[in-house]
């Protein structure tokens, strides 16, 4: 019986619990004596705190406590800097991180002022009304350009400006390239990415057991190990006294790896203080303010091209809205800066950005993590160049693709993994060809013309991108064959639906010759495994997957060695399959893996010094840099030229993420990413007024795509393995979301003949109303 599973669409191990409503999510945790927390949050974006009086709240029956910043004593401090600034010459960075409860000043709507603890969430919310808060409103910083102008109000007075960071990176000599160019295009672009809005909001349950001196925390985090280590340090506990469990998590997408959120920091302290377990579950309204966002950038970009459409250089100056605090360093704008280069040869590049403090919620990575913004700029510049030079949009891209023999391809500038940007491998042209073929690019002009005769306005879009994935620092895995023959895998990485329980099982199963369903995977429990970084930047399969592979290989070797001793034969004469080790050609001479495991853990005899009992191994994998995946999206839409309503007729994704472990799970990731991309391009917009108030803080008005807005997608992939890891895999989690913005812009321009009318789409998100406003003055 063959147990090959690597590369197969194996169905998921984790499904039963989820399908039957038996999976544990944080809000399902019920503990005796558990209390509930609610937070009083600022209703204004920028203000001095004059007074907070909780006396009346404390008198409400059922209220146990109410804490303000002053009550935290030495425990109150700004959170740690999670990602320091990269080693880039001349970088300016002003670290200002979030605090557990606002003191002196509030800097965005939703910033917490008070935490109330009561017998139920209902009562805790009642008590919020009892709290008397006096704030002195200050001028609000919302607009990026105004925020940098002299005389603007300051989000952080002691910084002296609203500059959170300033970075310039260059490659080659842009000025020289521009001097030689046949043509230079300059445009201003506005790109806004929205909020992650997973269906499960955030939540924390903290349980301090004073007698055992043990703190257990259930947290919807994507980074349980880092959270454990940080909280242990803050609480004055040893790391081993703190257990963080990220159980089933209902979607992460990035903002759940922001760490040391106020609530994460407060709940354990409250539990210790009151000696009772405490639960906080973010409600959807809070999520709009309390969980991090991605938001907007303004780019002034310039491309120097030759007459045949070759890119000679790009210069880009952009502003990035970082929000009120910058705990995540520069990750998002660095991603924009680097990913702008795309799959293209860009000999000269001069990119400068300023990350601006604003009186809005914090910006940290959300699926794509700033790549969208950069890809939009590049893809749109290419489209405008194509139009001005009268070159087909697909053709101009083809002419600039990095050729397959140019890898590893050095882009020189520093990436979010702190090393010089280098694409490890890639073969871009076949992906473009496949996408064009699948969408029917060649025949489209005729299709479009025929439709126009029936008054139907079809348009086509095509966008290319690369995605830096699988970055370090490392992940680890412990693999063990148990005496019942089942394999257990533990890793520190968290999981939020990506199929880790299955994918990691496939990797172990492949090495150990067992059924995937006989591999039990534990993730996100620091008592089970406490080394690692977390789920982010499309790295789970690459980094943790490779760690699982390495550990499985060692266990395999141990099993073979044991069996070879048992059968007195060479290891080469053995085969592992179907949970057994047998001699090649003599299947009846076998020993079950479980039995080998028992033999490796004897009750008598000796385990030789320098060896370990059992069939177990812990191994780590730390890639020196990220592996670069790539893809092309293509789309045909129909537009209503009067109402500007849009319908997607056909959507194609061709993608290369190296070796594929489970094609079904990979496809699911792409589908989900595209759906978020569609939301970003045409439906999701955070509408702030000039006082920093969010006007559409509900799912009724912040529009997530439904089954009627997301089309059926056609997927294909190529495989260009990565030389950076033994499995040859690259990450894929964010790919679907990255190029959708420019795809929509291009397709809409095509459907409505906008270029001929002198209208260019240089902003995302779009909407029917926005398209009406942008086109109303155009010549027809």
């Amino acid at each position, binding site marked *: 019986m063959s147990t090959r599973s690597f590369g197969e669409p194996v169905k998921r191990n984790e499904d039963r619990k989820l399908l039957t409503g038996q999976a544990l999510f944080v809000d399902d945790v019920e503990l005796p004596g558990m209390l509930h927390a609610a937070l009083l949050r600022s209703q204004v974006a920028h203000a001095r705190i004059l007074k907070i009086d909780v006396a009346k709240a404390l008198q409400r029956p059922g209220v146990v406590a109410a804490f303000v910043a002053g009550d935290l004593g030495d425990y109150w401090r700004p959170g740690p800097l999670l990602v320091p600034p990269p080693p880039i010459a001349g970088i300016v960075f002003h670290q200002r991180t979030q605090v557990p409860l606002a003191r002196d000043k509030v800097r965005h709507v939703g910033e917490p002022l008070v935490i109330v603890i009561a017998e139920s969430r209902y009562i805790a919310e009642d008590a919020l009304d009892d709290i008397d808060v006096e704030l002195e409103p200050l001028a609000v910083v919302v607009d990026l350009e105004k925020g940098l102008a002299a005389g603007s109000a300051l989000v952080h007075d002691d910084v002296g400006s609203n500059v959170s960071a300033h970075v310039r990176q260059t490659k080659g000599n842009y000025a020289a390239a521009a001097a030689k160019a046949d043509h230079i295009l300059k445009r201003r672009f506005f790109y806004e990415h929205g909020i992650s*809005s997973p269906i499960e909001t955030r939540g924390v349950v903290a349980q301090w057991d004073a007698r055992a001196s043990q703190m257990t925390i259930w947290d919807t985090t994507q980074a349980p190990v880092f959270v454990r280590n940080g909280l242990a340090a803050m609480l004055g506990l040893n790391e081993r006294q703190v257990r963080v469990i990220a159980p*089933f998590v209902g979607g992460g997408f990035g903002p759940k790896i922001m760490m040391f959120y106020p609530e994460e920091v407060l709940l354990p302290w409250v539990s210790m203080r009151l000696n009772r377990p405490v639960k906080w579950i973010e409600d959807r309204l809070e999520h709009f303010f309390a969980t991090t966002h991605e938001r907007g950038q303004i780019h002034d970009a310039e491309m120097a091209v030759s007459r045949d459409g070759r890119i000679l250089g790009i210069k880009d100056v952009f502003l990035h809205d970082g929000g009120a605090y910058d705990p995540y360093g520069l990750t998002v704008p660095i991603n924009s800066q680097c990913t702008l280069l795309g799959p293209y040869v860009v000999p000269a590049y001069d990119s400068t950005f300023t990350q601006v403090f604003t009186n809005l919620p914090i910006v940290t990575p959300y699926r794509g993590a700033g790549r969208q913004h950069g890809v939009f700029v590049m893809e749109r510049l290419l489209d405008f160049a194509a139009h001005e030079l009268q070159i087909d949009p697909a053709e101009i891209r083809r002419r600039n693709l990095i050729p397959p023999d140019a890898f590893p391809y050095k882009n020189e500038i520093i990436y979010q993994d702190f090393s010089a940007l280098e694409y490890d491998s890639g073969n871009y042209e076949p992906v473009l060809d496949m996408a064009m073929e699948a969408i029917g690019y060649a025949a489209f002009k005729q299709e479009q013309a025929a439709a126009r005769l029936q008054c139907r306005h079809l348009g086509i879009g095509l966008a290319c991108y690369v995605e830096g994935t699988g970055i370090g620092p490392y992940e680890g895995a412990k693999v063990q064959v148990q005496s019942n023959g089942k394999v257990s895998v533990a890793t520190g990485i968290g999981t939020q639906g990506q199929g880790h329980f299955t994918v990691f099982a496939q990797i172990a199963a492949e090495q150990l010759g067992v059924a995937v369903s006989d591999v039990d995977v534990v993730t996100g429990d620091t008592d089970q495994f406490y080394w690692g970084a977390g789920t982010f930047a499309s790295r789970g399969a690459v980094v943790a997957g490779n760690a699982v592979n390495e550990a499985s290989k060692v266990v395999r070797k141990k099993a073979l060695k044991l069996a070879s001793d048992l059968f007195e034969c060479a290891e080469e004469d053995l085969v592992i399959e179907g949970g057994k080790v047998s001699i090649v050609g003599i299947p009846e001479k076998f020993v079950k893996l479980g039995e080998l495991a028992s033999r490796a853990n004897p009750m008598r005899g000796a385990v030789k010094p320098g060896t370990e009992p059992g069939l177990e191994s812990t191994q780590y994998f730390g890639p020196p840099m990220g592996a670069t995946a790539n893809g092309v999206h293509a789309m045909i839409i129909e537009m209503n030229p009067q109402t500007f309503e849009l319908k997607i007729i056909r959507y194609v994704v061709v993608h290369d993420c190296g070796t594929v472990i489970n094609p079904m799970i990979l496809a699911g990731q792409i589908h989900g990413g595209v759906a978020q991309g569609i939301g970003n391009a045409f439906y999701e917009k955070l509408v702030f007024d000039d006082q920093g108030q969010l006007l559409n803080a509900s799912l009724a008005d912040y529009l997530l795509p439904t089954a009627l807005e997301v089309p059926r997608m056609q997927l294909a992939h190529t495989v260009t393995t990565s030389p950076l890891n033994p499995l040859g895999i690259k990450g894929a989690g964010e790919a679907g979301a990255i190029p959708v913005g420019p795809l929509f812009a291009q397709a809409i321009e095509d459907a409505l003949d906008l270029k001929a009318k002198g209208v260019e789409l240089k902003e995302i998100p779009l909407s029917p109303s926005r398209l009406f406003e942008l086109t109303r003055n155009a010549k027809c």
Partner: protein
Amino acid sequence: MDIDLHDVTLSVNGTKYQRRVESRLLLSDFLRHDLSLAGTHVGCEHGVCGACTVLLDGAPVRSCLMLAVQANHHEISTVEGLANEAGEYHPLQQAMHDHHGLQCGYCTPGILMTMTAFLDENRSPSEDEIREALSGNLCRCTGYQNIVDAVMTAAERMRG
């Protein structure tokens, strides 16, 4: 004011319960925390996301928009009651597993309750009809395609 308490008697997945609840307790919270049936999930409490969907006398409703007291003398069906006592899946659960129709699984119970009721009434749905029936349930992970395929397959299998 004093806490306003009411007695409720209701049946959930065929089991009868009698409890005393505060009038403002939402049905979603009652199921999850008072009856420990945590399979029904809460995503928004404003009636939009559909994660909390349960069946009220066989019809899908948002449990976050109902009070527990309103369930008095009614029959509620939740995801915990979909598989049979032997643990065998409803055809839709099986099809969701076969088609990878769930990733994080948080929206899944709401979708299962909505779509099993849909399949009971519409035995041969088209893709458009499925998407329309599904449009009241938000999913942030899957992009819906595999869920649609799962519903199609379940319908086929249920038609025998």
